[in-house]
């Protein structure tokens, strides 16, 4: 029984990791209706930059601040340079372009910092507590709390602010948005910028757990996609809850379902995705229009 609860906690901890990337994916989808396969790799680049600044002797907080702002610019730049010129192109084209971003940023990190894994400066204490034999680590708890705040803030921005509404509108239909006086391109640009910053925050949160390496985000991509689907693609809180469910399902399933086992745990996010899509295609928190996408 202790093992069960331990695995539950472990699942939540890994779920928080999936949720962090899912959050960035959801943000960019919400703001531009694009699934950016290169999102994780852009975040990795930001994380490396932050690490490099720390290595050069800047205080951690300052370098995070600088890189957070730089990430925003990176997102804006990528949008202007690569996405905007093809905004009228078929979706497959955009998919391949984001795959190109994925390859590009991964190779860039590999070229600049090589493949060795590195220690990312941890923001949270490393200890933990034993509660009735179940170990709860401080860092996992902190990540969860930060993500919760982040998701709630994002949700509130989209729901209640003029800016959020305008971003959602631009993503929904650029033409209709132009007709109500929204500067659509600026909104899409902001969307990419914010998503890149959220991606960086995600990388900062999970960096110490996954270690810094050019491919650190690769294994969690599928899990993040599953989390976002489960939560409904347009809900930040949904992405968080989705991530946690995927994490727990994976942790428990890999251990207690003998025919799956730890070596086939990758089928769990797929199964979860499939079930939710067949039962409730909009995800747990999604709105109906996403289905038609």
């Amino acid at each position, binding site marked *: 029984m202790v093992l069960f609860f331990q695995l539950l906690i472990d699942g939540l901890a890994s779920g928080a990791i999936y949720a962090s990337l899912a959050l960035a994916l959801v943000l960019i989808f919400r703001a531009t209706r694009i699934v950016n396969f290169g999102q994780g790799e852009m975040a990795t680049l930001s994380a490396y930059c932050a690490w490099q600044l720390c290595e050069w002797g800047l205080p951690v907080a300052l370098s995070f601040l600088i890189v957070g702002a730089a990430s925003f610019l990176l997102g804006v730049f990528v949008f202007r340079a690569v996405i905007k010129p093809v905004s009228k192109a078929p979706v497959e084209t955009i998919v391949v372009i984001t795959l190109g971003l994925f390859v590009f940023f991964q190779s860039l990190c590999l070229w600049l910092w090589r493949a060795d894994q590195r220690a990312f400066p941890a923001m949270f204490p490393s200890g933990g507590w034993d509660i009735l034999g179940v170990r709860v680590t401080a860092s996992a708890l902190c990540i969860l709390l930060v993500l919760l705040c982040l998701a709630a803030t994002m949700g509130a921005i989209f729901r209640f602010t003029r800016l959020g*509404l305008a971003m959602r*509108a631009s993503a*929904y239909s650029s033409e*209709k948005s*132009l*007709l109500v*006086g*929204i500067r659509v391109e600026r909104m899409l640009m902001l969307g990419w910028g914010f998503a890149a910053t959220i991606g960086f925050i995600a990388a900062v949160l999970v960096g110490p757990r996954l270690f810094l390496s050019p491919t650190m985000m690769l294994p969690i991509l599928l899990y993040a996609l599953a989390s976002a689907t489960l939560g409904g693609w347009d809900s930040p809180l949904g992405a968080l809850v989705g991530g946690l469910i995927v994490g727990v399902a994976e942790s428990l399933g890999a251990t207690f379902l003998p025919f799956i086992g730890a070596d086939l745990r990758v089928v769990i996010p797929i199964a979860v995705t499939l079930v939710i899509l067949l039962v409730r295609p909009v995800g747990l928190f999604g*709105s109906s229009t*996403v289905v038609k996408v």
Partner: protein
Amino acid sequence: MNILTVRDLCAGYGATDVLHKVSFTVEQGSIVALLGANGAGKTTILRALSGLLPSRGLVEFGGTDLRQCSPARRVELGLAQIPQGRGTFGDFTVEENLAIGAYTINSKRQIKEDMERWYTAFPRLAERRRQQSGNLSGGEQQMLALARALMSRPKLLMCDEPSLGLAPAITEQIFEIFKSLNHDHGMTLLVVEQNADLTLQFAHTAYVLEAGDITVSGPASDLLRNEAVQQSYLGV
């Protein structure tokens, strides 16, 4: 006084022009109808006026040359359009639609007042203010689209085929609203329609568009009696 002056307007998609030097004017405080068959270029005119399409020729709105203005700027200047297919945001709630309609308005108080005003005018929308607009009926959506456009306090409201897909009774209701907007609030309207019969009853002035050119123009009451128009559009 003309609120809108269009002279030698050319616009189209890609290399081919749909409009060939169209010229017309809209008088302040009037209802102007733009009639024409499918594909005559009516929607193209509206899109060019809103800045969604690149165009050549003079477009002057309230004394401002619109050619240098972005679509957003045109809305700020008081040009609103209800596009074909309503122009509401399906995954927004009714209230969010109204809020986004007022995107160019900076005064919170004014937004609140306007919202209440249109809720009073369209009680159906007030009842459904928290619902997703995608789930509304066609008539309700058209009302929402109208309210959404009015939230920006336009000087000229352009409306593309408001009757499309609506039951005749509801269409009539919409036109009644247009009339009262014009009459009570002094709003200028430019209505694009295929349903010439009904439109001409409400409009003051009308233009008939054929293959990218204006062929007939004049007071609506004259056009109602014009034989050519009767044959082509009124099914007489």
